[in-house]
């Protein structure tokens, strides 16, 4: 069944020194390796200055490190630094596209295609845009195994009214890895733009933005072993150049007079105000950390843990796993429901054993409605997890069944 190592790939996470902590909530936010914390502290302690205009050595040092980190982050996902815009988080990155690209490119009678499994962050901005301009949303259905149909996408694209196809790379509930290259190619052939939400993909599997070919690809730093407060938007240059700025103010200008403003070049045109400098540097260390482990090894490891979790969880009577049946179709997460207990009660009882899982609708209420569920319990995996953590989860679920099981 699973042949890869079942022990953790990396363990130098200070928070894991807490006795007994079983962290299975990396899809919500990842824990931070020591090297990332060190990079954050080192920058703030020894290299801190504002970027872009300083001429003294410390400022030049800060600027150099900031630029180098952007280049490192861009290279990690196969993107160009000039096409790599630093935002607050993935949500802001999607909103940037919605506000800056949207009104010029989507109008009355047009359509936007989403999947039923999108996170609210990749639904609400498009819903708002559609309301504003009089466009419609078309929902790609997910089937019983959590998969979308490219045939349905073709149907949606056939009338030529679709202007944007926005799809998650990896579902944060079902775990499904979507065929994003095919989605992007079909969208482009039909004259539609594409946006891929890579929040659950980037730290867990090889992502090459250039090869995927999406017009926009977004992800977030804090789920990728980096700090909070930094998200990424990779966009195609010709689109970014044609788009007006999103937020305006300092740093994003070339010249400002009493009468008018000319805007800065890419990527700075979209980065108004002081950017998250230390966070960018720390995220550079985070992608270095992942590269050091090897993204293919990371993927193999998490796939093995996921396969083990699927087999162990499915052996529990009354437990239903959501999403694709095979680990190779999934990112490193498993959502499930128990017949006898509500996910919130499951998570509470697991929490007493320091087994940290998420329970709720996972910001995917339309998907929950489709699945006929109010909530699920989700365990998600990272490089520091091992099969021991899955065993702890399964053992703790035994306590839930002991409390709730008998009717």
């Amino acid at each position, binding site marked *: 069944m699973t042949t890869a190592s079942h022990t953790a790939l990396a363990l130098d996470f200070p928070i894991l020194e807490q006795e007994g902590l079983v962290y299975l909530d990396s899809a919500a936010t990842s824990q931070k390796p020591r090297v990332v914390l060190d990079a954050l502290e080192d920058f703030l302690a020894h290299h801190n200055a504002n970027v872009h205009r300083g001429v003294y050595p410390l400022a030049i040092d800060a600027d150099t490190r900031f630029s180098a980190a952007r280049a490192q982050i861009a290279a990690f996902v196969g993107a160009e630094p000039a096409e790599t815009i630093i935002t607050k988080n993935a949500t802001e990155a999607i909103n940037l596209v919605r506000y800056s690209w949207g009104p010029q490119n989507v109008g009355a009678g047009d359509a936007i295609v989403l999947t039923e499994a999108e996170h609210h962050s990749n639904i609400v901005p498009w819903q708002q845009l559609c309301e504003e301009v009089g466009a419609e949303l078309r929902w790609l259905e997910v089937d019983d195994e959590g998969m979308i149909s490219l045939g349905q996408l073709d149907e949606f694209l056939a009338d030529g009214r679709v202007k944007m196809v926005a799809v998650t790379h990896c579902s944060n509930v079902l775990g499904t890895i979507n065929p994003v290259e095919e989605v992007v190619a079909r969208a482009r052939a039909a004259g539609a733009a594409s946006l891929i939400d890579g929040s659950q993909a980037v730290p867990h599997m090889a992502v090459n933005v250039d090869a995927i070919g999406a017009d926009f690809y977004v992800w977030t730093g804090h789920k990728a072993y980096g700090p909070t407060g930094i998200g990424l938007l990779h966009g195609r240059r010709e689109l970014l150049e044609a788009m007006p700025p999103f937020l305006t103010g300092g740093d994003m200008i070339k010249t400002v007079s009493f009468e008018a403003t000319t805007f800065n070049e890419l990527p700075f045109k979209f980065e108004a105000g002081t950017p998250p400098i230390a966070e960018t540097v720390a995220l550079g260390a985070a992608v270095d950390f992942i590269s050091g482990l090897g993204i293919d090894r990371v993927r193999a490891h998490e796939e093995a843990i996921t396969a083990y979790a699927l087999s162990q969880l499915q052996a529990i009577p009354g437990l239903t796993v959501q999403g694709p049946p095979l680990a190779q179709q999934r990112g490193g997460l498993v959502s499930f429901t128990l017949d006898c207990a509500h996910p919130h009660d499951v998570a509470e009882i697991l929490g007493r054993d320091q087994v940290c899982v998420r329970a*709720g609708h996972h910001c995917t209420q339309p998907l929950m409605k489709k699945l006929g569920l109010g909530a699920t319990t989700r365990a998600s995996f990272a490089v520091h997890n091992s099969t021991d953590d899955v065993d702890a989860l399964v053992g703790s679920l035994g*306590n839930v069944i*002991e409390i709730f099981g008998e009717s």
Partner: protein
Amino acid sequence: MDDALYREEILEHYKRPHNFGPMENPDRESFDTNPLCGDELRVMLKVDDNDVVEEVRFEGHGCAISQASASMISDEIKGMKLDDLARLDRSAILDLLGIDISATRMKCALLSLKVLKSAAIGTLADWEPDTADAARPAGGAQL
């Protein structure tokens, strides 16, 4: 297993809730959700000419704490005037539950009280003060 939060009476109400199910032509009705865990609860009341609760039914789904709370309070409010129902506070529920409720579970416990009070006053009632998200002022805006 002996468990303080999930004591026997609470599990009993969760598994076999009282006054659950539909009601035809209710006089009063209210629906609300707990966005934290996706709980949904609808309450339906029949009241007599003096605004006294004659019948109560709940519908919805949620965690053990929210469902048991609804079941327990439903037994208590029959024969109560709507005015008195509207004046109930959290102690009505917490006394019935008889357990310590953590800050994150407080909304689960108090959702049933919120929909009941909403049905009584005919408009959406506020969450009880200090119920949940720390950023929201006590007794403040609706979700």
